[in-house]
């Protein structure tokens, strides 16, 4: 019987690889019986969703005026 600690690690791993059949089954059995690990599993999936949304979010940080000018100058020099 897997402990919650072991399950938490395997649930995370299942986001990065396909678990071997027996491990997958053992995790399923544990999850059926343990609401805390089910909540944890839900959180890891929500975290992944949140990261992916975050990756595509609209620009929120302006490029400074100085940096803008520096880049334009670099382009002018490189274009010569």
């Amino acid at each position, binding site marked *: 019987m897997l402990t919650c600690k072991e399950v938490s690690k395997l649930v995370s791993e299942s986001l990065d690889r396909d678990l071997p059949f027996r491990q997958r089954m053992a995790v399923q059995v544990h999850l059926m019986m343990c609401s805390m690990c089910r909540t944890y599993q839900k959180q890891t999936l929500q975290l992944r969703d949140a990261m992916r949304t975050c990756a595509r979010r609209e620009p929120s940080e302006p490029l400074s005026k100085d940096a803008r000018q520096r880049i334009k100058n*670099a382009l002018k020099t*490189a274009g010569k």
Partner: protein
Amino acid sequence: MSDQYVADLEAWVDEHGDALFSYALSRLRNPASAEDVVQETFLAAIRSSDGYFGKSSPRTWLIGILKHKIVDLIRKESREQPAQEIETMEEPEELFFDRKGHWRIKPVDWQVHPGKILEQKEFMDVLLQCLEHLPDRLHRLFVLRELEEMDTEEICKDLEITSTNLWVMLYRARMRLRGCLTENWFGGEPC
């Protein structure tokens, strides 16, 4: 190289600069590094022999170049700070479980309404702050895996780590992030 192309690129600095900078900053944390990769991106764009011929939107094209620059930089930083043995790294999971492997503090249901919360700027800001607080190595790895959605094998090769280390480190990053989010957004105990 035509003067027109240089002028187009300069206009793109104004048009797409914020988008590129935000993208880089969320992945690199450091504003100076983010500005550098944005500059390198434009310089690479000006040097690319075929240039931009309307293959995709200019922003998509520039972001594509930027992604490579970011991954290159992350790889370089990772080489400069060689990985310690995994055994010597601190283990956040020890905080979350007792000696028998039971949860010390019950994970709280976040009661998230899917989609809704993700639209909130405040939530994303907290998430990014939590991400920023990850230790360097976990941060680099997590960015490649969850923001860039890179393949795990590719990450192992790039950062010269074993897949076992990769799984452990991603696990630790996730444990920390869910702790940070619970504490700072969902207002629960830091678990």
